[in-house]
């Protein structure tokens, strides 16, 4: 248990007051219109959504997750944290296409890309799924804060979960996305500074880089410094096949929309940027900070390993980075560190509260229940949805026990069967709403069947996650590809309109030729592109 002195409480209280005040300050902007409440009026320079990308994806569970994989796998575990690299290509491909569509949400984009009943079913499905997924994310991030508070103050887990999420909800309810983005900026700066400070402090405590490397060598653990220490092509706990699969998922996935669960918060940041160029740089820059942050953390966890090399309990070594902060920082800095953790925590909570509410408001309430609702009414629906998400997250959070297993499941399996369809919907004109919808349904059934049910009953053996990814992808394609060809292509009028507006990448030749034939694109354009 950690004991706070006066200065520690001072840092914490000052920070919380500043943060909540900063959010409320934008109350007037947030209530101007729905575009302000959910997209800050679509007018932000790139560095604001970039800081939000960074802050949102730096949560209380992130150092727990990074500590877990680096302690277990050494520096090669850094590749477990490399999934955000889908933004490397996305920033210049799918981000550009999505920004041009102007859709508020990914669910709305479905009805711009596809048409008819299939598109509406997709929109309703994705909106509903996103509402509950955001509640789920709020739960798992919230319970991580509960764990931190338990570690620090021996509070029951629910207190940390409820207290800080509720504080954060004050400014999200008041100012919507304006509050989120402005608080994210200050939280992002604080979080990055403190992560760097505590990590470097930890490296120093361990005796500095040279001592760490010497200790690892004397322990026979030098391989931990090699990020490419594979255990074989398909054998051992870190096979090359896993690494190659990760690279394909992370990098090629950037051509699609929804290939990662992180796409959905990023989509909101993309639309809040003032231009196409700003949206590209916001996604690229925010993610660059994330991958740099992971490297800083990784070295700190190596330092931790050199001090405590024999920890067997996952729950214990997952707290490695927090241990550095709380057990080794000087008196008076504990409160500052904890205030930074609060910053890390609520930036994520705020984003997911507002994001989940945007799906409930724009895609469910307005589109299906009250299409003619005024902006004032929609903002109130946004606030009520925010409250429902908050309360729901408390229940979800209290049901979760171990962070790492949930995250691995979410990163690999929940999206394995829809990874390729999420790319096809962007790059291939013939892929239709029924194909995409069927891939979702097939994936839900297949993932539970292959990952949980069949191994549980001994029908198949438990497979490594990277093998599951490819199996899920192939099995899913056996369902959605025939279904795509057995059903009609999307309406050509709808496709032409989408093409002219968004100018997608890939195989769109029939649609492009039709757009040229209708005089919507110049012949020069076709000549320049060489009839792609």
């Amino acid at each position, binding site marked *: 248990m950690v004991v706070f002195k006066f200065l520690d409480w001072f840092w914490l209280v000052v920070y919380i007051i500043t943060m909540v005040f900063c959010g409320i300050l934008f109350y007037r902007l947030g209530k101007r219109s729905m575009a302000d409440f959910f997209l800050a009026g679509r007018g932000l320079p790139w560095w604001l959504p970039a800081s939000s990308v960074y802050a949102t994806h730096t949560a209380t569970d992130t150092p727990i997750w990074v500590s877990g994989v680096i302690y277990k796998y050494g520096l090669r575990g850094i590749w477990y944290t490399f999934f955000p690299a889908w933004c490397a290509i996305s920033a210049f491909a799918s981000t550009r296409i999505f920004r041009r569509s*102007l859709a508020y949400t990914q669910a709305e984009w479905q009805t711009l890309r596809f048409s008819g009943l299939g598109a509406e079913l997709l929109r309703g499905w994705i909106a509903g799924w996103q509402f509950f997924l955001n509640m789920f994310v709020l739960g798992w991030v919230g319970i991580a804060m509960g764990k931190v508070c338990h570690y620090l103050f021996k509070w029951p887990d629910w207190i940390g979960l409820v207290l800080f999420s509720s504080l954060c909800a004050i400014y999200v309810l008041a100012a919507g996305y304006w509050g989120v983005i402005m608080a994210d900026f200050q939280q992002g700066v604080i979080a990055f500074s403190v992560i760097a400070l505590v990590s470097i402090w930890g490296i120093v405590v361990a005796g500095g880089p040279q001592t760490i490397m010497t200790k690892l060598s004397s322990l026979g653990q030098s391989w931990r410094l090699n990020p490419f220490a594979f255990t074989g092509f398909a054998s051992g706990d870190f096979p090359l096949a896993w690494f190659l699969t990760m690279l394909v998922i992370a990098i090629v996935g950037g051509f699609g929309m929804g290939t990662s669960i992180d796409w959905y918060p990023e989509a909101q940041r993309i639309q809040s940027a003032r231009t*196409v160029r700003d949206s590209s740089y916001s996604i690229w820059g925010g993610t660059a900070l994330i991958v740099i942050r992971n*490297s800083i953390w990784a070295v700190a966890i190596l330092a931790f390993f050199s001090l405590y090399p024999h920890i067997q309990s996952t729950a214990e070594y997952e707290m490695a980075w927090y241990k550095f902060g709380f057990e080794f920082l000087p008196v008076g800095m504990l409160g500052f560190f904890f205030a930074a953790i609060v910053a890390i925590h609520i930036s994520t909570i705020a984003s997911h509260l507002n994001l989940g509410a945007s799906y409930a408001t724009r895609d469910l309430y307005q589109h299906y229940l009250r299409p003619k609702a005024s902006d004032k009414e929609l903002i109130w629906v946004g606030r009520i949805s925010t409250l429902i998400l908050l309360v729901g997250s408390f229940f979800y959070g209290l049901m979760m026990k171990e962070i790492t297993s949930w995250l691995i499941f979410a990163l690999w399996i929940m999206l394995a069967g829809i990874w390729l369809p999420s790319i096809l919907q962007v790059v291939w004109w013939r892929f239709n709403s029924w194909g995409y919808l069927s891939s979702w349904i097939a994936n839900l059934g297949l993932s539970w069947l292959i990952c949980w049910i069949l191994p549980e009953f001994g029908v198949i053996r438990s497979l490594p996650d990277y093998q599951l990814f490819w199996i899920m992808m192939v099995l899913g394609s056996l369902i959605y590809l025939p279904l795509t060809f057995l059903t009609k292509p999307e309406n050509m009028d709808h496709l032409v309109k989408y093409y002219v507006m968004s100018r997608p990448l890939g195989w769109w030749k029939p649609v492009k030729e039709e757009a040229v034939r209708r005089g919507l694109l110049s012949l020069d354009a076709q000549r320049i592109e060489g009839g792609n």
Partner: protein
Amino acid sequence: MGWIKTKWTSQEADQWTKEDYITFVLSPLVYVLLVLGVAFSLLLLWYGWVILGAGVVLLVIMLRIIDPKLKAISEDYEAKQKKYLEDLEKIARWEE
């Protein structure tokens, strides 16, 4: 870099060209170099600084390749955005 186009008309910028494809290759490579470069630099290994430096140089090259095109796309698109937003609201309200 004479073979890289730096002046774009709006029609040209709307196409997917070699500048985009080069960026698709450079961008993930920059991330990989940043990840490795930062980690090895913190361990005070000399090759960490080399990798990090290479990452920064590639980043500058990438921006010089893609930025003029992104500027042209943005300028052209923002001029049409108001009309597109009006259409979007009509769809949301089932008026289209």
